[in-house]
């Protein structure tokens, strides 16, 4: 059972959706994330750098077909933080439902 912990780093909408996309995957290519989130390269890079500095994602660069390809994966710490954050969001919503019956 995951303990709910609200995480300000993950809560940013782009970073939250990025974590949600990555949660079910071992890793995803940078362009896939960029296209799915509907942001530019630079915006996604900035958000990923924030997640990476928190130890939540790992970026891997590899050369394939003479092109540099970046793949992104959630770390164990990132998965735990994401699960805890989602649990915290559910708690907030459930708290509201309990506080205002009907």
């Amino acid at each position, binding site marked *: 059972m995951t303990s709910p912990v609200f995480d300000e780093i993950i809560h940013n909408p782009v970073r939250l959706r990025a974590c*949600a996309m990555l949660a079910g995957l071992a890793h995803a290519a940078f362009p896939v994330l960029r296209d799915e989130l509907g942001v530019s390269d630079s915006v996604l890079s900035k958000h990923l750098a924030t997640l990476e500095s928190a130890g939540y994602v790992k970026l891997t660069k590899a050369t394939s077909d003479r092109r540099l390809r970046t793949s992104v994966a959630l770390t164990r710490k990132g998965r735990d933080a994401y699960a805890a954050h989602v649990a915290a969001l559910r708690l907030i919503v459930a708290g509201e439902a309990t506080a205002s019956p009907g």
Partner: protein
Amino acid sequence: METDPVDAQSSLDAVASAERRSAEIATPPLWFDLWFGVTCAVIPVEAAIGTAIAAAPILVVVECLSFGLLLGTYRRVTGVWPRQLFMFTHLRFVLLLIALVVLLVGAAAANTQLAWSYGLGWWLVPVAVVTAVLATLLSRTGNAMYAHVLGAR
């Protein structure tokens, strides 16, 4: 907690939508299952040829190359790599894998027996086709299960 319930609910909606989309992207398309099924069907054919004539290492090489190419193509086309280990906590998925192993071992054993008794013949074609169709269906079912589990978390 520094967010209000409305914000939290919209965040949860965004999470659910992103997880569903992630599952859609990671779920292998039909060509993956067909390719997988055909590659699986090579295993019993290999067993029959190995029994009736001689071991055919070229088929083993073709099979390994086909599996490797299949996974490489999937990764290139989708741009993602799924997490699969968590699926082993789902009994139905494990049963599906067992069914696949039973199918392949069973088809290989049957082909070995038939090749031993009758030599190579046209019987090899329907056995290979049935194996390919069943392996394709098992692959499709497993991938649908994966998409459901991932998208419904």
